[in-house]
């Protein structure tokens, strides 16, 4: 294959993938049987179809979002009214999304990184390690609506009544605390998986070098391994954040059916966190024709804002990846 290389492709092949046997001298499909060529055509058609769907979603929401989104919507809370012009905006939902995302990741990141460190660096007894792996996989497979129902049990208990509104001994169990805690479970498997990948990619000799200069295992982990795995940790956190801000079921059940903040008590940050609230996903759900508000224009506007957030997170993941690749790998 070395000398018989035909015309080199205009752009160099990306990551050296050894299983591409004929990257340089690609066999065309002209010699194939008809059935094989039809198969290739199906490949192209489906690939283009997926591209078309993605473009359609973005363009459609862009058009709808730009035509219905007014800057004032981002700063006015929702109010009740008869027409879509009277019902205000969705500032509470926007802030709620930010709160839920921050709190959820604030819980999921340390827990997820801790679990990943234990799995990769300690992992004894082996039985517990296997059990933990299955647990993380299982959590990833649990439907979020089931997590939400479980949350109603936890946060409606009297012991945790201080985290939400209580009246006449009945704990409502709907608060930012409740929603964010359950949402952190949605993000947890992603953080664990990504961090593990990062730690596993660090070769053993790096650890041995650190031990050789007298560092303890945990100091090595904190000072050497975690900084080296930072891109993967960040990727996991951002993927988890994307999942959190996109989740609706947990918000519907654990944050409330209201479209405004419903603070509880007087201590400033805590009263909002203890109270019910809303997020963009909840707003879109309620403002869609199947929800209680039925304001499709505002639903489009909020969905557009939500989509922008998701796109920004996607782009951030890309940037982190690219930067990590530029820094290089351990192998050289």
């Amino acid at each position, binding site marked *: 294959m070395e000398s018989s290389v035909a015309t080199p*492709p205009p*752009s160099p*092949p990306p990551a050296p993938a050894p*299983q*591409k*046997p*004929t990257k340089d001298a690609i*066999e065309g499909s002209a*010699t*194939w049987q008809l059935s*094989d060529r039809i*198969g*290739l055509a*199906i490949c*192209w058609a*489906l*690939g283009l179809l*997926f*591209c078309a769907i*993605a473009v359609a979603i973005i363009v459609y929401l862009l058009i709808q979002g730009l035509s219905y989104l007014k800057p004032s919507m981002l700063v006015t809370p929702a109010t009740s009214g008869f027409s879509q012009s009277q019902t205000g905006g969705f500032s509470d939902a926007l802030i709620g999304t930010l709160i839920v995302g921050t709190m959820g990741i604030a819980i999921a990141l340390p*827990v997820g990184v*801790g*679990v990943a460190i234990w*799995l990769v660096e300690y992992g004894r007894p082996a039985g*517990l390690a296997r059990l933990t792996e299955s*647990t993380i*996989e*299982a*959590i990833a*497979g*649990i*439907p*979020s*609506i*089931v997590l939400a*129902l479980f949350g109603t*049990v936890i946060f409606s208990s009297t012991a945790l009544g201080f985290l939400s509104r209580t009246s006449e001994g009945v704990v409502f169990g709907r608060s930012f605390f409740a929603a964010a805690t359950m949402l952190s479970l949605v993000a947890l498997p992603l953080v664990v998986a990504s961090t593990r990948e990062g730690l596993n990619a660090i070769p053993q000799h790096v650890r041995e070098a650190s031990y050789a200069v007298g*560092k*303890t*295992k*945990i*100091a090595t982990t*904190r000072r050497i391994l975690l900084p080296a795995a930072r891109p993967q940790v960040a990727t996991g956190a951002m993927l988890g954040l*994307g999942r959190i801000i*996109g989740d*609706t*079921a947990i918000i*519907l059940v654990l944050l409330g*059916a209201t479209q405004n903040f419903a603070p509880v008590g007087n201590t400033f940050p805590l009263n909002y966190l203890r109270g019910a609230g809303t997020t963009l*996903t909840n707003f*879109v*759900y309620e403002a*869609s*024709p*199947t929800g209680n508000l039925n304001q499709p224009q505002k639903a*489009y506007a909020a969905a557009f804002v*939500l*989509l922008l957030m998701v796109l920004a997170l*996607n782009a951030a993941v*890309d940037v982190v990846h690219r930067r990590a690749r530029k820094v290089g790998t351990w192998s050289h």
Partner: protein
Amino acid sequence: MEEQYPSEYGPKWSDQRAERMLGALVCAVVGLLLALIITVFVKAWPSFSHNGLAWFGAGGSVEEQLNQIYLSGLSGAHYVYTFHAWQLIWSTLLITGGAVLLALVSALFVSVFIVEFAPVWMRDILQPVVRFLASVPSVIYGLLGVLIIVPTIGNDLITEPQKASVAGVISLSGYSLLAAVLILTVMIAPLMISIFSDGLRSVRPGWLEGSLALGVNRWRTTWKIAVRSARPAIVAGTVLAVARAIGEAVMLAMVSGSVAFAPNPADGLIFIYEPSRPLAPTIVKNIDSLGSPPSNATLFAIAAVLLMSAAFFSLAGWAARRAMRKYGATA
């Protein structure tokens, strides 16, 4: 490497202590999952014990039963638990099955395309597209479904005679099996594509080269060698997609029709236009009745069924992958 080499963090971060703390954290996470499973089943028990296996059977209208259950909880005199979930289960089977089937076929073709046949520029477009489709929140899919797909199906695809033919039984408005399956396919296919392509990339190059050296063309080589030896990854991706599809609540609550009804394939092709409601959206729609104890038990019973099916599919996937381990490819 213990106390005699204190790091700059002092003895607080000694090794044993760190290991114990991390171990405790891990145990807490495991314990939380156990608590979740136990709680769900304990809470669900009244509903299961009152109905027995009839819980999974057909009989009566689910809406009516849910309403009775809810009202009995409010009056508090005598709780009613009678619940026959077949309409919901059938809807779940149809929608999940349809979407997974469609997604499996298209994801196979697309991942083969990405890994093997797409030109570099096309691959550079497709990979971000797949990632984007996987990260769009389900509520946005639901919104687009409600405002575009559902009206299109209702106004353009379903003809008036078709509407009239089932008018006495159910009204066809576009909220349908078809809409649910199509949107769910777009939601789960990206998940499959990313796992399938990882599997296809990790096929041993020597096997492919051997096949090519025998004069088999690239298309056949890919399907006969690469796809076959990537079967564990295909199973793994499919299992994940099934779990996601079964648990999808919000999007389906928006587009599937929100009426407990069992579309009957025996009616002919019209059944794909009929509305239905799977298990998970039923929880979402009835979440306000959580305060009524028998409703609470019923909703938890639905959640328990979701948990069980998720567990069943991951076990089945694990068994299938174990059986395929001899083919040498890793998932």
